[in-house]
């Protein structure tokens, strides 16, 4: 079952998520969103996924927040009153709750956490776990998959990151080389 630490983290995650949506100031919302990422990162650690935790902390809580802050500071802030006035339409609440309930119906169909019968452990996962050291000599299976077995996918991801940089340079019409 869920440990007390995980329970506390999950509850605070939900609380922080509501705060992000309900805080009036955009700057405050950005900072609270960083806190959300930080709680999420700790949760990843408790779920024994340190690689994801490191990414969440560095990208989610760190760099994304600074990018948001910089963009907010260099653009004109909308009036706080115009962003959120505290009233929510009942139909919106009904729709959100309805969708959540419909999605919740699928929850019992999910395998238990860590179950060896989960579909995720059925396909290529055992192969990666077995072959990571003998084939590539890499102890960190996450790295073995990302940079070894599935490096073509990762190459695509790096190209996306690179494209983001190129896009910004093109938009600001900077000829750097």
């Amino acid at each position: 079952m869920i440990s007390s630490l995980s329970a506390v983290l999950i509850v605070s995650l939900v609380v922080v998520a509501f705060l992000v949506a309900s805080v009036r100031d955009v700057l405050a919302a950005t900072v609270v969103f960083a806190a959300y990422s930080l709680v999420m990162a700790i949760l990843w650690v408790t779920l024994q996924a340190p690689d994801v935790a490191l990414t969440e902390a560095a990208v989610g809580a760190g760099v994304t927040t600074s990018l948001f802050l910089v963009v907010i500071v260099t653009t004109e802030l909308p009036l706080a009153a115009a962003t959120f006035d505290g009233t929510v339409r009942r139909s919106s609440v009904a729709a959100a709750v309805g969708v959540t309930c419909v999605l919740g119906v699928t929850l019992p169909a999910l395998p238990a956490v860590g179950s060896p019968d989960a579909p995720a452990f059925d396909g290529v996962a055992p192969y990666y776990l077995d072959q990571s050291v003998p084939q590539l000599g890499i102890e960190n299976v996450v790295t073995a998959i990302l940079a070894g077995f599935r490096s073509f996918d990762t190459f695509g991801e790096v190209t996306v990151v690179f494209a983001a940089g190129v896009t910004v340079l093109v938009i600001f019409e900077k000829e750097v080389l």
Partner: protein
Amino acid sequence: MGDDRAVDSVVVTQTVRLLSPFVFTYGLYTMFHGASSVGGGFQGGVVVASVVVTLAFAFGIDQTGDWLDRGLLTGAAVLGVLSFALVGLGPLAFDGVSFEFTAYPGEKGALYAVEVVEVAIGVTVAATVTILFFELSGGFDERGGSE
């Protein structure tokens, strides 16, 4: 917008001054040791870039932007993608298919290929995140007047 964005708090500047070398080293460690411990190129690259971002927040975005070489950063981003592509195409020379790192000769050929790939990813990510930050903040705008 205010032009003078330098932050003068001694606590902030001294803390950043003290911590930056350690965070930078941790970023490089994450990048180089992705094969044997937590992390990899993506995470390491972001941590390295975050050092520059922290410096910018502490010592002023414009001042840090002046200190950086835009051409070098763009070149680094290109170099990372190109070296990843080269390592990916390398196995073709050893009767493998592209990105089949096990085709590299030697007992640790695949391991070295993956480590080069990790560093290439790290270089591209670090350079790109730095470019994104300074372009979006206008810190690379030397004249900086028109905004």
